[in-house]
């Protein structure tokens, strides 16, 4: 038990937190961008906000509020 604890601590300290957190933020930005691309594509193909929301697993209002700027 104590041995594995020591091992874990070593493994943890080897990871640079800044690098990990930067990756998470970059992933968030990538997610936002990809979501925008695919929501736009779905709308252009005539999908309803409801159908888009269901695929994304969020509420219809959430998608509509986020993307309806132009309409």
């Amino acid at each position, binding site marked *: 038990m104590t041995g594995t604890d020591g091992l874990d601590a070593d493994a943890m300290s080897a990871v640079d937190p800044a690098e990990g957190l930067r990756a998470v933020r970059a*992933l968030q930005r990538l997610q936002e961008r990809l979501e*925008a691309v695919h929501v*736009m594509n779905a709308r252009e193909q005539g999908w309803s906000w409801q159908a888009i929301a269901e695929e994304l697993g969020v509420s219809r209002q959430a998608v509509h509020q986020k993307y309806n700027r132009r309409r």
Partner: protein
Amino acid sequence: MFERFTRSARVAVVLAQEDARELDAREIRPEHVLVGVLQSSDHALSVLLSGYGLTADAIRERLMRGSGADQQPFDEDADALRSIGIDLGAVRDSVARRFGADAFDNALNRSGRRKRRRGHIPFARSSKKALELALREAIHNGDREIRSEHLLLGILRGADEKVMELIDEHIQAPQLRGSIINLLNEAA
């Protein structure tokens, strides 16, 4: 630090944040502070700057044109994502193949997605430096308050590459600096 700012200098800083948000920037950069100053400067300074073609509209227009093709944030994210095994270049290429060459870069602008309305946008290191240098310019000039003029001098002194490029399209930095100092001395 802001307690020594004049009203118009405070407004400039607030507008800098607004502009950064409007342009979907991650940080408040010196060019956003510049746009803030250009929008809020009092009459004499405003006449001086617009005489060089330095107006909020002109700079903002340049920033909007540039923002879609800005390579640096992409490279930073690509580095970060590589560390967790994602090839951002490959993702961008696949989006480009299926949705058009600039679909990835312009996704956020084109989708009708609302811009972030809330949330704090931090000052970039280069902007903090410009604000500190503005304070130093005021002290050096024997002024008790930090005015918009000092903010501009701070931006020039900080010499961030991108903002200097934007200014240089209208007027060379040393000449601008000289005119601003003249203006401050006339007012004193």
